[in-house]
């Protein structure tokens, strides 16, 4: 029960990983406990730093929306994504057409 899984090329040992995470967690805790505890609560030291502007009341004004995530990635691969999104037309008959096309192609491959 406690041994490893051999894959033929390597092995997988979940308990080694768990002990790794325990050690790593202990180190993180240790480093965190080295932090200074003598800051002044309620003073400016306690405030969020927001580019020296006042922090907005509603979180809506300072959150990063999902469409901004991976902006660079999608921008760099724009030609690829234009093709890919264009391919998902959303027309029901296209869905059926792709199915018939793939069937025909595979049939050609195997019968010839």
């Amino acid at each position: 029960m406690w041994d490893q899984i051999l894959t033929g090329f390597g092995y997988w040992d979940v308990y080694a990983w768990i002990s790794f995470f325990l050690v790593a967690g202990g180190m993180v805790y240790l480093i965190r406990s080295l932090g200074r505890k003598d800051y002044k609560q309620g003073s400016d030291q306690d405030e969020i730093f927001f580019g020296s502007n006042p922090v907005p009341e509603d979180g809506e004004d300072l959150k990063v929306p999902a469409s901004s995530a991976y902006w660079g990635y999608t921008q760099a691969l724009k030609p690829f994504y234009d093709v890919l999104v264009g391919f998902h037309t959303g027309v029901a008959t296209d869905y059926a057409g792709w199915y018939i096309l793939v069937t025909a192609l595979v049939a050609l491959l195997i019968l010839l």
Partner: protein
Amino acid sequence: MSWQVHLPALLLAVPLLGAFLAPLTALGGKGLRNTWFVLVSAAFTMIAFLLWTRVGSTGTAIYVMGGQGWNLALPSGMSIPVRILMEIDAFSAFMVLLSAVAALAGAVFSIAYMDRFSGLEKFVALYFLMVTGMFGMEITGDFFNFFVFLEISSVASFGLVAFWRDRGEALEAAFKYMLVSTLGALMVLVAVAFLYSKYNVVNMATLGKVIEWGIVEKTALVLFLTALAMKCGAVPMHMWMPDAYAEAPAGVTCALIAVSQASLYGLFRVTYTIFGAFMGSPVIPWVIIVLGVLSMFIGVSMAVIQKEVGRLIAYHSVSQVGYMLLGFGVGLLALSDARAMAEYGFTALKGGVYHIVNYTMYKGLLFLSAGALYYATGCRNLNDMGGLGRKMPKTMALFMIAAAAIAGLPPFNGFVSKLFLYESTFAVHPILAVFAMVTSVLTLASFVKIFQTAFLGPALQKFEGVREVPGTMLLGMSVLGVAILALSLFPTWSVNHLVEPAAKALVDQASYIGAVFSASVTGGGL
């Protein structure tokens, strides 16, 4: 004779009874209906578990419907089975167990999730019909029954996808799903007819015994292959999948995943058990591998740019099915070559089988947690969400488990099956492993996106009143969460007891065929 020989019949009878009595339970009010929903789900999960243990201890189970005896496969000296036959080998039993767990989780989750809506007795009835069809596909030993059960589960799922019929999108998704799915099911029927025209049998074991490699068989194989690959969402026939999965109620999507796995089961039953090593060309394995690689890569590329939670996770379904197709395709490629099989083929197959169990568990949980987000906030769009981790810590914890598992972060189980696949596909061609790894990276990237935008970030004023979802929803999610943790913490047990017997049963064509024909020797009354 133990009553347990009747488990295959019970597995179909219990959800069917549940479906037909569900409208009656509505007379007893909400409480009775919900009790019935959970009770029947628990009952079929129990039956599935017992069936799995029984097949594990006594080998392939045969059940004959409509004969004098449950095990009289060849009555009165017939040389081929003529009755309706159920045949459950280790692979079927494994699939049944998984599907039952996913369906149970979906049912428990749906109680609170669907509580605000009317017409729920119809919902429960359709849910159980879909489950019946799914189990039927997994245990039948007969191609025509396979078609019938495929249609039962499909038609029930069309109704469930369109359950929120006040939303135009749900109807649109159901129509699209229905169009391709009906067409695919008809092609399955044509394939059955092709095989019947040559061999005059529809029994799987008999077909596996007599099959040759000719034009008729090739045509039938192609029709089966593309129809079933479409049903489990292989690119480029996957477009119905994000639509249907994202628009169906979350509990239903959790069960729909198991239904798509039943189609995958059908695909591999056809390619491994019926054709198996007789398949005279490497074209079909390579077609499966190419479909797998395309699904992995295109599915995950589309997922990264999605803005709706449901669609994002549904595109991941496409890419995860690609991993399984890749593993099974490589296994099929090595099937006729004993040395290649021992070197990498069996590892790939184990990876594929292992990925089925992992995928069903974590993907079900992901859809349920997406459903929990929708239930609590009423939003589907990721752009509108944020800071929900403070309000819904338990949902966040369960989502984290599932997301870490799907992205293959150690120590979770998602990585183990991927490790099998990377190392075995590398032996066939390194490019396959490269695609698999790139897909894994993009998977992690898109789940980081959901996690960061939905759960992290500053608290939003509009979500001031959002609270943690009700207990039964958390319970339904925990069923799958606990399953993922157990699979992660005991990888050796799950590989030895769940995965390997199933993978061995899949390559052991002779024992699947032999089980039907030897049943007649011991055959007789009860």
